[in-house]
C-alpha cells in the first residue's frame, strides 16, 4: 500500500499535465527562495553570534576602584568620515608585570602609537588623524587580528599615550585585570564601545525572523498550496477509489515534497555559492572571512525544515481550483464584508494620522501609531468597497468583457480584492518605512564640537590651535569657547565668537546685543551662563571642555586630527553620523523582505488567475466568447483591484510621512513612494502578462 501511495505521489510530482505545471513551478521556485531566505537568516544569526563572542572576549574586566590593576584604560569615540569608532587608550600601571592584552594584539603599542584594525589602515584614517601605527597586532600588516574584531570593516584602535604623558587619574579611567569572560575581576565594563559594527544577536534574530524567515515561509506556504486542477481532480478520484482522507493527504504531501526537494537543493547550492560573500549591496559592513558559512548540519536542518513545511502544506486538503467569482460562499462573504466598516476605519486612520501633527513629543508618536494601525487594518477591510465601486463603474461598459469583469468585481469584491490587499498593505508599510529611512539619512548637525583630553599640560591648547589655525588670518575661524565642567560657565573670547556658537554670523545681527548673544551661545552648548574674556589656564583633567563651532568648509575630522596626539582626547559633536554599518543593512533587508512578500502576493495573484482559467475559460468559450475576450476579461478582473488599491495605499503612506514630519521622524518623499507604487503595479502587470500566456495554453487545452 505504501509503495502504491508513493508511486501515486511520484506520478503526481512528475506529471506533464499542463494543469499541474503552475503548481510544479511554484513549489520548486518557492522552495528555492524559502531555502535561501532561511539559510541566510540562520547565517546572519550565526555571524552575529560569532561577532558577539569576539566582542565578549575583548570586554575588559575591571577592578572595583581602578587601583591595583596591571592596565589602565579609557575608551574614546573618534569620528572619521562621519563614522564614529572606538579608540581604546591603554596604559600599563607602574611596576605591572604581565600586562593583559585584548584579543588581536601581541603586545601593547609603543608609546605615542596605535594598533589599528585593517579597516582603519585601508581607509587612511591614521594618516588623516596624524597617528603613528604600531605593528603589534596579530593580523596581517601588524593590524589587530580577526579574533579581536567584530567584522573586517570594523574601525578600532588601541592607543598608548606619548612618552611622558599618561591617562591621569579619575574620570572614566578604569583598572583592567584582563579581557573576556574568563578573566578575574569584579565585573566587566558594559557598553564600552561607541557603536557596535555588528548588531546584537537578539536584534539580528528578531530582524532575521521578520525580514527573511516569515516572508520566506509566507512565500513557501503560498507556493505549496498553489492551485492545480489536476491535483484537485486527482484527490477527488482517489477518494472515490476508496483511499482514506489521510491517504489522499499523504499522497498530496509526498507529491509536494518530491517537487520541493529539487528546489531546496537548488537553494542550498545557491547559498553555498553566496556564503563566501562578506559584503552587502548598499552597506559598508564587511564580515570576517567565512562568517556566513554554515556548518553542514545547520544547512541540513534548514533544508529539511523547508522541505518539511512544503510537505505538510502539500498534505492539507487540496482546494479546488474553482472560479473565484462564482462560489456561493464567495457571495455570502461579499455580503458579509461590504467594506463599509473598513472604509470608516480607513478614514479614521487617515484622520488620526493627520491629527497627530497637532500633537507633540511622545503623544505624537502614540497618536500617529494609533492612526497607522487603524490604516493598516482598515486598508484591507476597505478594499472590497473600492473594488465594488470600480466594478460598478466598469460594468457600465458596452464591451462584453468589461461588463462581465465589472459584474464579477461587484459580485465577489472580497475574493477579488485579496491579492490587491496584500500588495497594497505592502506598499503602505514599505512606503511608511521608506519615509523614515530617508529622513534618518538627512539629519543635519549644528556644527558644535566639544573636546577634552586627559593629563592636560600648559601649552596643549595652544599647540592644538596652532594645528587648527585658530586666530590666524584666512583660517576661516573656528568659534572657540571654554566650558566649565563645574560651574557650567562658558568663556568666549569675543561677542562674535558667542554669536557664531549660537549659529549666527556675528554679534551685530543678534537682537538684544551682546548679552543676548552670550545667552544664546550658553543655551546652545548647554552652559548656565557665558562670559567674555580670556579663558582660564587648563590644568585640571576633566574640569574644562573646549567648544568649537565649525565654519564653512571645516570638518570635525580637522578637530579630531588636531587633538589626536593628546592622551585620550575626546572630541564629540552632533554632526550627522552615518548609521552604523549594521544599521545600513536595515533598508536593503526591508527591501528584501518586501521583495519576498511581493513575490508571495504576486504568486497569489497568479494563483487566482490560473485557478480560474481552465474551467472558467471553457464555460465562457461555450457561451461564445473568444479566447482573447476571456483573457481580457480575466486581466480586467484581476488587475483592477491592484490598480485601485495601490494608489490608495500610496496615498496612505504619503499621509503617514507627512504626519510624522511634525516630530521630524520622516520626510515626505512622494516621488519614491509613487515609484514604489508604479513598480508594484508594473510587476503585477508583468506577472499578469506572463500568466496570461500560460492561461492561453490552459484555455486551448481545456477547449480542445
Amino acid at each position, binding site marked *: 500500500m505504501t509503495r502504491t501511495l508513493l508511486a501515486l505521489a511520484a506520478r503526481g510530482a512528475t506529471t506533464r499535465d499542463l494543469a499541474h505545471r503552475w503548481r510544479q513551478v511554484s513549489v520548486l521556485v518557492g522552495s528555492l527562495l524559502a531555502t535561501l531566505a532561511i539559510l541566510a537568516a540562520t547565517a546572519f544569526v550565526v555571524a552575529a553570534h560569532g561577532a558577539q563572542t569576539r566582542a565578549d572576549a575583548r570586554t575588559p574586566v575591571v577592578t572595583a576602584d581602578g587601583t591595583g590593576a596591571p592596565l589602565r584604560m579609557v575608551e574614546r569615540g573618534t569620528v572619521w568620515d562621519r563614522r564614529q569608532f572606538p579608540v581604546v587608550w591603554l596604559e600599563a600601571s607602574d611596576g605591572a608585570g604581565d600586562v593583559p592584552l585584548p584579543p588581536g594584539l601581541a603586545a601593547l603599542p609603543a608609546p605615542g602609537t596605535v594598533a589599528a584594525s585593517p579597516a582603519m589602515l585601508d581607509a587612511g584614517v591614521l594618516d588623516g588623524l596624524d597617528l603613528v601605527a604600531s605593528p603589534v597586532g596579530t593580523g596581517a600588516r601588524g593590524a589587530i587580528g580577526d579574533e579581536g574584531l567584530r567584522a573586517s570593516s570594523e574601525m578600532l584602535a588601541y592607543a598608548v599615550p606619548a612618552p611622558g604623558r599618561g591617562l591621569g587619574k579619575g574620570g572614566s579611567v578604569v583598572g583592567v585585570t584582563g579581557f573576556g569572560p574568563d578573566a578575574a575581576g569584579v565585573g566587566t565594563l558594559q557598553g564600552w564601545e561607541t557603536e557596535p559594527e555588528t548588531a546584537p544577536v537578539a536584534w539580528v534574530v528578531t530582524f532575521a525572523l521578520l525580514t527573511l524567515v516569515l516572508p520566506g515561509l509566507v512565500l513557501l506556504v503560498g507556493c505549496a498550496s498553489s492551485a492545480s486542477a489536476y491535483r484537485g481532480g486527482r484527490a477527488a478520484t482517489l477518494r472515490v477509489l476508496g483511499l482514506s482522507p489521510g491517504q489522499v493527504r499523504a499522497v498530496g504531501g509526498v507529491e509536494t515534497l518530491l517537487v520541493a526537494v529539487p528546489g531546496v537543493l537548488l537553494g542550498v547550492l545557491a547559498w553555498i555559492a553566496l556564503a563566501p560573500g562578506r559584503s552587502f549591496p548598499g552597506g559598508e559592513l564587511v564580515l570576517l572571512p567565512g562568517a556566513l558559512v554554515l556548518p553542514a548540519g545547520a544547512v541540513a536542518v534548514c533544508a529539511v525544515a523547508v522541505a518539511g513545511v512544503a510537505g505538510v502544506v502539500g498534505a492539507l486538503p487540496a482546494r479546488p481550483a474553482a472560479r473565484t467569482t*462564482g462560489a456561493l460562499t464567495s457571495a455570502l462573504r461579499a455580503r458579509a464584508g461590504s467594506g463599509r466598516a473598513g472604509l470608516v476605519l480607513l478614514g479614521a486612520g487617515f484622520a488620526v494620522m493627520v491629527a497627530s501633527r497637532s500633537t507633540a513629543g511622545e503623544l505624537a508618536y502614540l497618536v500617529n501609531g494609533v492612526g497607522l494601525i487603524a490604516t493598516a487594518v482598515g486598508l484591507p477591510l476597505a478594499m472590497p468597497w473600492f473594488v465594488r465601486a470600480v466594478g460598478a463603474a466598469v460594468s457600465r461598459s458596452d464591451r462584453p468583457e468589461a461588463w462581465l469583469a465589472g*459584474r464579477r468585481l461587484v459580485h465577489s469584491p472580497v475574493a477579488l480584492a485579496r491579492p490587491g490587499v496584500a500588495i497594497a498593505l505592502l506598499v503602505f508599510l514599505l512606503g511608511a518605512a521608506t519615509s523614515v529611512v530617508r529622513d534618518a539619512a538627512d539629519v543635519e548637525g549644528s556644527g558644535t564640537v566639544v573636546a577634552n583630553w586627559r593629563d592636560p599640560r600648559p601649552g596643549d591648547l595652544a599647540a592644538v590651535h596652532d594645528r587648527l589655525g585658530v586666530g590666524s588670518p584666512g583660517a576661516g575661524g573656528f568659534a572657540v569657547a571654554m566650558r566649565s565642567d563645574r560651574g557650567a560657565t562658558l568663556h568666549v573670547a569675543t561677542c562674535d565668537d558667542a554669536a557664531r556658537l549660537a549659529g549666527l554670523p556675528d554679534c551685530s545681527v543678534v537682537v538684544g546685543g551682546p548679552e543676548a548673544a552670550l545667552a544664546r551661545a550658553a543655551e546652545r552648548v548647554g552652559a548656565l551662563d557665558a562670559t567674555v574674556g580670556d579663558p582660564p589656564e587648563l590644568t585640571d583633567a576633566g574640569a574644562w571642555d573646549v567648544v568649537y563651532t565649525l565654519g564653512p568648509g571645516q570638518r570635525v575630522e580637522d578637530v579630531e586630527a588636531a587633538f589626536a596626539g593628546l592622551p585620550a582626547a575626546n572630541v564629540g559633536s552632533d554632526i550627522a553620523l552615518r548609521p552604523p554599518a549594521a544599521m545600513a543593512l536595515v533598508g536593503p533587508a526591508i527591501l528584501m523582505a518586501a521583495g519576498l512578500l511581493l513575490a508571495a502576493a504576486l504568486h497569489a495573484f497568479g494563483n487566482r488567475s490560473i485557478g480560474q482559467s481552465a474551467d472558467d475559460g471553457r*464555460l465562457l468559450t461555450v*457561451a*461564445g466568447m473568444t479566447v482573447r*475576450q476571456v483573457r481580457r476579461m480575466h486581466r480586467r478582473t484581476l488587475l483592477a483591484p491592484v490598480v485601485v488599491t495601490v494608489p490608495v495605499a500610496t496615498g496612505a503612506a504619503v499621509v503617514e510621512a507627512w504626519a510624522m514630519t511634525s516630530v521630524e521622524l520622516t520626510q515626505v518623499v512622494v516621488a519614491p513612494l509613487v515609484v514604489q507604487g508604479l513598480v508594484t503595479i508594473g510587476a503585477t502587470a508583468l506577472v499578469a502578462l506572463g500568466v496570461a500566456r500560460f492561461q492561453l495554453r490552459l484555455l486551448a487545452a481545456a477547449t480542445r
Partner: protein
Amino acid sequence: MIQVRSLGVVRGDVTVLAETSFEVPDGTVTALVGPSGSGKSTLVRCLAGLAAPTTGTVLVDGVDVARLGAAAQAAFRRDMLGLVFQDPELLDELTAAENVALPRLVAGAPRRTALEAARAALAVVGCEHLAGLRPGTFSRGEAQRVALARALATPGRSVVADEPTASLDRTNGRLVVDLLVRHAREHGAATLVATHDPEVVERCDAVVDLRAGAAVVG
C-alpha cells in the same frame, strides 16, 4: 440541418472517431448513442468548434465549422448553435436572465433587447420566476432548464446537447427532453442529443449509434 461527413478524429495513436457520417434534418431530434469512449462528446465538441476533426467535415446549416477561425467559431457558437451540457455551466455572478442573455450580450446586442429575449426564453422553459436570481440558489433541474433556455435563445436553428439529462432526476429529465423536442418541432431546429438514457432515445426521431467508432444510423 446538421451534416456530419466522414468525420474522423485521431488523438495521438488513438482513433476516437472513424468515418462517421449522418445528418440531422431540420425539425427533428436525433439521439447520439454509444458506449463510453465511443466518441460522443468528441463529436459534440467538433460540432461546436471546440475540437478539430482529423478528417471529414461537419456542417451546421451549411457552415463548415472546422474551417472557421477562432473568432468566427466563437461567433458561430453565439449565433448559430445552441449548446447544452451535462453541467449547466452557469456563471454565478450573473442572474439567470443575464446568463441566458450572455451570448447575445457578447455578440454586442443592446442589453435591454438581450435581456427581454432572455426572459422570454426563460418563460418557455418555465423559469421566468428565476430571471432576477443568481444560480447559487437554483436546484439542479432549474439550473439545467436555465442552461437550456440559453441554448434555445440562440438565433440559429440547431441545438446540440451532450448528456443533458444525465445529472437530473426522471421528472426533470423528461421536462428537458420535452422542451428540446417541442423546440425542434416549433422552430424547425435540427437537434442532436448525445445520451445514454433509453427514455431520451425513445423520444427521438432517429438514432446514431457510435459503436466501434463508426455511426450506425437507426
